[in-house]
């Protein structure tokens, strides 16, 4: 308990020390960097972690970047304070037992097959994009990690071989053959292909939560394997839920931290709508009432999504509202799709035990009534 408090104190004091160091030494380096007067080591560091700076500084004034640098320190402070609280309140066993989710064999199996079949449905046609990637090879930049490890654009044959390995892994996972290993390989290949898709100076968030889920799924499968009982607690399931809920929560938090509650003003909403020029969006922008209400609804949903982790009842409201949110974004701005992967991953919040039981009892009653005739 004593060492727990010491750890907590370290996490509490760290952001204070970091903030002082930042204000005294580093904040001025941002200005120097903007005017190309920063020391070499600092410029190299900026180039390594934020290469877009060279382009962005042509577009924005100094205060924009100072604000961004402040944000990094604020964010670091928030994480550190959160960890201080966590270390103070919990031992690791308490943390795991409190947040782990009950996961029966039936629930796990349903989730497992639905997730991997869904992954197949969403990605089976990615091979069609490979010719375009190789065609665009002159524009290839490589996402950060690719540049660091020196990964160049692949030739078409290699892309197809890797995609065959991806589909084979998916098949083996569905057949439950060495599924921890192949689900891990699957997740890595999924990340690799997306890395290539995003190596042309534009990234997309369409597959984000799906990717997070597939990265954690091997943990969940392993966890289920080492727990022999039919009903067990799964921390992996909680981690996936945490990722999905945090994606929404942080998107909302980012808006507050960057723009304040002014973000939800009708004026900002209308500007975004006008940038995308979608017919439904333009119609909604004409309505004074909707232009005031909808941005608040979106923001509150994003900030409130995290409550789904702590209350089962919240999911009854949050999930349908989440679907409406994505459909609304599709209609008003033309972003995403009606079958968005962000909606698909809501499967991790559903109680498949109940759903499977209800479905099977309905099926058996239908069979009985047919036999009765």
């Amino acid at each position, binding site marked *: 308990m004593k*060492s*727990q408090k010491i750890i907590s104190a*370290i*996490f509490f004091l760290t952001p204070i020390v970091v903030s002082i160091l930042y204000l005294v030494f580093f904040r001025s380096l941002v200005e120097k960097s903007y005017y190309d007067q920063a020391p070499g080591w600092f410029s190299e560091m900026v180039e390594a*972690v*934020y290469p*877009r700076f*060279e*382009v962005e500084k042509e*577009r*924005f004034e100094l205060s924009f970047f100072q604000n*961004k640098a402040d*944000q990094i320190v604020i*964010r670091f402070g928030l994480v550190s304070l959160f*960890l201080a609280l*966590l*270390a103070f309140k919990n*031992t*690791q*066993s308490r*943390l*795991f037992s409190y947040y782990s989710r009950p996961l029966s064999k039936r629930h796990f199996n349903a989730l497992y097959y639905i997730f991997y079949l869904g992954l197949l449905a969403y990605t089976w046609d990615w091979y069609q994009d490979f010719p*375009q990637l190789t*065609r*665009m090879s002159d*524009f290839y930049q490589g996402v*950060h*990690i690719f540049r660091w490890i020196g990964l160049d654009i692949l030739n078409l044959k290699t892309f197809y071989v890797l995609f065959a390995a991806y589909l084979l892994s998916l098949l083996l996972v569905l057949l439950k053959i060495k599924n921890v290993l192949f689900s891990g390989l699957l997740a890595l290949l999924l990340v690799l292909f*997306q*890395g290539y898709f*995003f190596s*042309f*100076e*534009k*990234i997309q968030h369409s597959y984000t939560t799906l990717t997070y889920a597939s990265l*954690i799924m091997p*943990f969940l499968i*392993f*966890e289920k394997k*080492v*727990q022999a009982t039919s009903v067990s607690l799964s*921390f992996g399931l909680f*981690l996936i839920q*945490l*990722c999905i809920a*945090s*994606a*929404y929560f*942080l*998107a909302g938090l*980012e*808006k507050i*931290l*960057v*723009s304040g509650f*002014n973000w939800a*003003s009708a004026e*900002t909403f209308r*500007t975004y709508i006008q*940038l995308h020029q979608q017919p439904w969006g333009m119609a909604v922008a004409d309505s004074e009432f909707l232009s005031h209400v909808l941005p608040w609804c979106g923001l509150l949903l994003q900030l409130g999504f995290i409550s789904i982790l702590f209350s089962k009842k919240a999911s009854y409201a949050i999930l349908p509202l989440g679907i409406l949110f994505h459909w609304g974004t599709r209609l008003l701005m033309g972003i995403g799709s009606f079958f968005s992967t962000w909606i698909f991953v809501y499967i991790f919040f559903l109680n498949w035990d109940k759903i499977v039981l209800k479905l099977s009892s309905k099926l058996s009653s239908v069979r009985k009534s047919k036999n009765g005739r």
Partner: protein
Amino acid sequence: MLTLLIYQFRQLKKAKKVNHKLIYLRLGAFLAVLLTLFIPFIFQQTFFPFYRFGMFAEPVSRDIQKEHFAIHAKSAQGLIYSDISAWVGIRKSNMDYLLRNYYYRHELDSLLRRTAALLPDSSSLTELNVLRIMNTDTTKVARLEL
């Protein structure tokens, strides 16, 4: 984060009747998730695949945020094509980003040469132009004769 990890490992060593493998795994995964979720938005492209989510967080308060670029092509018959993405096989959404980045890196000539190389031989285009459009102002910022 490292301190917490070391502390947790020490706690685990003390406990005898736990499945260490599983707890280490849970602990590692939990810390990895925490670390990746709090990456500031400006690093959204830096730590692939651990994206950051802050889409549209910045209010559009500057004209520069409304700026966009376009490639217009001119044919031998004098026709103007405002979207050549189907011919060169680059999605328009990708091309928009390339145009902006190449413009600010002062490399538009190189972009136009690379784009021209992707045009099919059968195309009768004679000229490619890059336009910078901001509010009602449109400026031709690069040109390539084919």
